[in-house]
């Protein structure tokens, strides 16, 4: 079977999980509620500013939830169907499958991000004027994160799309890494979800108690540069150390590193399973 066909089959397996659609329904309802809650009177370019802000504001929670739900079962699928040992006996087997699965997961991340942008566009279209895609960001610059003010909103949206796809892919690869060590999908889901939720809990609550301590500073730095920070655009902080291009380069590097690490660990586990 060619890799494309294998990828197609893996995609079918991933997208046929009913858990994704249950989570998608709930997240859509809550996401729309979240969008409604930030409604304000229309002014020029508000549509594009709000669209640019929507993922760092609330969207990243839902993206994270859907990544955890969708990716958690991706690897344990064979284990749960009692096929994992069988795969070890195939010529291509687990390693090729791991490559294909990680590529399919990238497609999944793209789909989720597109979906939430789609919902946001749909909701905002009803309230705000759509014009201004090619206006410069500096004309209405109060964004949640740092962006080059000379860019047009079109450029900003393309950049932002790439950023969040890469950030969510890194998070998804981390879930894959977890699933190399945890066999049951529901536990991967809960542990992955807890790691993300713990970050948010820290940022929204715990920091109030320990913010004045040195420990608080270190933990905030960890938050900013771990998955929560990536997904909530903290890398594009106004006082952050990275330029917009450097962030892309760094994310690509982390994604490749995780991709390779997962393959290496998958290969190592294959040897262990086969008693080499």
């Amino acid at each position, binding site marked *: 079977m060619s890799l494309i066909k294998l990828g197609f089959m893996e995609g079918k397996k991933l997208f046929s999980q009913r858990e994704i659609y249950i989570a998608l329904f709930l997240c859509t309802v809550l996401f729309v509620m979240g969008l409604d809650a930030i409604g304000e009177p229309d002014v020029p370019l508000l549509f594009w500013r709000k669209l640019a802000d929507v993922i760092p504001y609330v969207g990243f929670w839902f993206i994270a939830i859907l990544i955890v739900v969708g990716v*958690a079962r991706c690897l344990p699928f064979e284990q749960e169907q009692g096929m994992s040992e069988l795969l070890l006996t195939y010529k291509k087997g687990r390693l090729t499958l791991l490559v294909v699965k990680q590529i399919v997961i990238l497609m999944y991340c793209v789909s989720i991000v597109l979906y939430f942008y789609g919902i946001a566009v749909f909701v905002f279209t009803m309230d705000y004027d759509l014009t201004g895609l090619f206006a410069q960001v500096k004309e209405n610059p109060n964004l949640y994160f740092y962006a080059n003010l000379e860019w047009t909103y079109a450029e900003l949206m393309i950049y932002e799309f790439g950023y969040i796809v890469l950030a969510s892919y890194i998070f998804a690869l981390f879930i894959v890494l977890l699933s190399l060590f945890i066999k049951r999908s529901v536990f991967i*889901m809960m542990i992955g979800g807890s790691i993300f939720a713990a970050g948010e*809990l820290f940022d929204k609550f*715990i920091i109030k108690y*320990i913010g004045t301590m040195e420990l608080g500073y270190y933990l905030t730095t960890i938050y900013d540069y771990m998955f929560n920070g990536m997904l909530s655009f903290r890398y594009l902080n106004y006082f952050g150390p990275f330029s917009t291009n450097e962030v892309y380069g760094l994310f690509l590097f982390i994604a490749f590193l995780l991709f390779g690490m997962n393959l290496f660990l998958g290969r190592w586990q294959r040897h262990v399973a086969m008693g080499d």
Partner: protein
Amino acid sequence: MLRWEIKKLTRNVWNIPIITSVICLWGIMLYFSTQARFWYILGSLALGFIILFISTRLFILDEEEKVSEVILTTKYGRWNLLFQRVMTAGIYTTGIVILFLFIQVIGVLLFNRNEIDVHELLTVHFLKGCLLVWGGSVLFSVFTACLCTIFKSHGVTAILSGILFGMTYILRGNLLQQYSFEWFLEKGLFSYLIRGENGLFEPQWVVIIVWYVFLMVSMITITIIIQFRRHEI
């Protein structure tokens, strides 16, 4: 029978790591504050997490371990067992609430820097609030048990309950219109009860009680109907 169900729950390999990590987190937090509002975020989230992670699993274990048909063909494997399992989930949840309460009291006694009246803290926040916490937790564990029985999937239960429960901490509905969808989402999905103290001063407590009675009765009825259809009770 109850003894065996409790044994099954306590045999869950995740019990020790999860409870230990929660206790460690609490321990650290207790050091920094006397935590009068402990149930408000950390406590309620930890309880919800443990209920979802551990006690709900009791209702899916038969499917996962491929013994459901064996159990269904035993004399007490239907109504009786379902009832016993709900009881077990309630007892387990009660045990966890007591454990957490114990840690809190210890924390207050050890670390209180005289900023809070200990008597008021123990009577109002702990004793009265704890009744709500306990009630909310038991109701939540029954609710998740019903969901798990309906969907026969721990994953689906974790997603449905986890998102709805967890989102009340992020999408806050305090300022929203009374009796709106958001209001019910905020107050009607157990986290409000498990947070304890807020419920003590709830002006619309009659509506809240009616809502929870309605929610639980509907959930249990739907579960029973579906179980009947599947010929499981």
